[in-house]
């Protein structure tokens, strides 16, 4: 089949709403875009465990500690679903982790901000997971079968993440003046990084048009961001939080909350390695990956020994 013919058939399958499975013919650029996007998504889940892990030992109650542990365990599982989806395109997990450690693969820049107080755990669940859910609900409709299935499972599990975060914020906002101040401070620090999670404006987005044509994305960055803003502003007001955007205003015509300009300079600075925690996050991942080496060696030696015993027991 000629390339042109394959491309035409591929596009018509996409236009008909069919899902593409790993063994199906696909343009090289489709495969590459998915690999980049899914591995970046997987790395984000795993690196995202670090800012929350920072508070496991200091969670204010046993209830809070159990919830936080369950949430972090979910994020590890979500990383695995996504690595598996990427592996279906013929890459090893080892290779992806190698790319992360070598700085060739990125992860969501939002995880390069520190978690300074307990309210940050509330803000992450409510805002960061909230933004992720808006994005992932869209990605569940994407054209690549394994990615779409992983997203469905993740969305189902993440339902509690956002609610537990909002619960933390709501409880602090009904607490003492110091607790309210702490919640507002977390809101001030996490609001803008959460809006940046949706990526550059549609007019600036490098990968968008091809991704939309192939239904790797089915809605644009700005549209998703607006959906998140509309929902979240109302939730903030409901518990008395102030959105840290003096230009934020409600548009009666479009029924949208319109945000002021996003500081893209900061976004690109953090993406390119100069955020508050980039270095720390990567060192931590490399350190524990290396330190786990003996566990992997032992497990492999044990499996080999078992295999030998099984082989000889036949005779």
């Amino acid at each position, binding site marked *: 089949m000629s390339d042109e013919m394959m491309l035409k058939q591929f596009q018509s399958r996409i236009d008909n709403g069919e899902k593409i499975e790993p063994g199906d*013919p696909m343009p090289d650029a489709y495969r590459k875009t998915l690999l980049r996007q899914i591995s970046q998504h997987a790395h984000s889940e795993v690196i995202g465990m670090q800012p929350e892990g920072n508070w496991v030992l200091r969670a204010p109650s046993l209830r809070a500690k159990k919830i936080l542990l369950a949430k972090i365990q979910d994020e590890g*599982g979500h990383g695995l679903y996504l690595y598996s989806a990427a592996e279906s395109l013929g890459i090893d997990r080892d290779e992806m982790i190698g790319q992360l450690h070598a700085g060739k693969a990125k992860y969501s820049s939002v995880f390069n901000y520190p978690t300074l107080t307990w309210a940050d755990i509330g803000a992450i669940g409510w805002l960061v997971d909230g933004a992720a859910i808006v994005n992932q609900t869209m990605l569940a409709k994407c054209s690549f079968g394994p990615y779409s299935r992983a997203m469905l499972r993740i969305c189902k599990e993440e339902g509690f993440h956002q609610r537990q975060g909002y619960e933390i914020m709501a409880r602090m906002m009904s607490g003492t003046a110091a607790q309210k101040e702490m919640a507002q401070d977390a809101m001030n620090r996490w609001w803008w990084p959460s809006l940046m999670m949706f990526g550059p404006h549609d007019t600036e987005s490098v990968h968008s048009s091809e991704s939309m044509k192939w239904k790797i994305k089915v809605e644009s960055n700005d549209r998703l961001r607006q959906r998140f803003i509309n929902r979240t502003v109302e939730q903030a007001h409901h518990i008395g939080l102030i959105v840290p955007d003096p230009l934020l205003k409600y548009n009666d015509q479009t029924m949208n909350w319109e945000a002021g300009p996003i500081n893209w300079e900061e976004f690109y600075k953090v993406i390119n390695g100069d955020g508050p925690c980039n270095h720390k996050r990567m060192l931590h991942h490399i350190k524990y990956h290396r330190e786990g080496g003996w566990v992997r060696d032992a497990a492999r030696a044990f499996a080999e020994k078992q295999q030998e015993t099984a082989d000889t027991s036949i005779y």
Partner: protein
Amino acid sequence: MGMNTNDNQFKQWEVFIQPRSGAPYEHAGSLHASDQQMALQNARDVYARRSEGRSIWVVPTVSIAATKPEDEAEFFDPAGDKLYRTPNFYKMPKGTTGL
């Protein structure tokens, strides 16, 4: 890559979960593990944290034989003209009951 000399991601397994008694096992996803026991435990930890199942199968991915996309016509087209294998193909006399 020099950084990852310790790496061993282990072989890949496919996980099947039976959601409730009597239901068929359904594919849940895949994972890496060094042996059967680790595969079963990882499957529980990753795919059954919210009472998704009551029983798990794990199978090494390499042991699964699968049709290829180009096999679709050969494998599945022959059923297309054999509607007589389904009950609604048959015309019953008016007023027939219990069929």
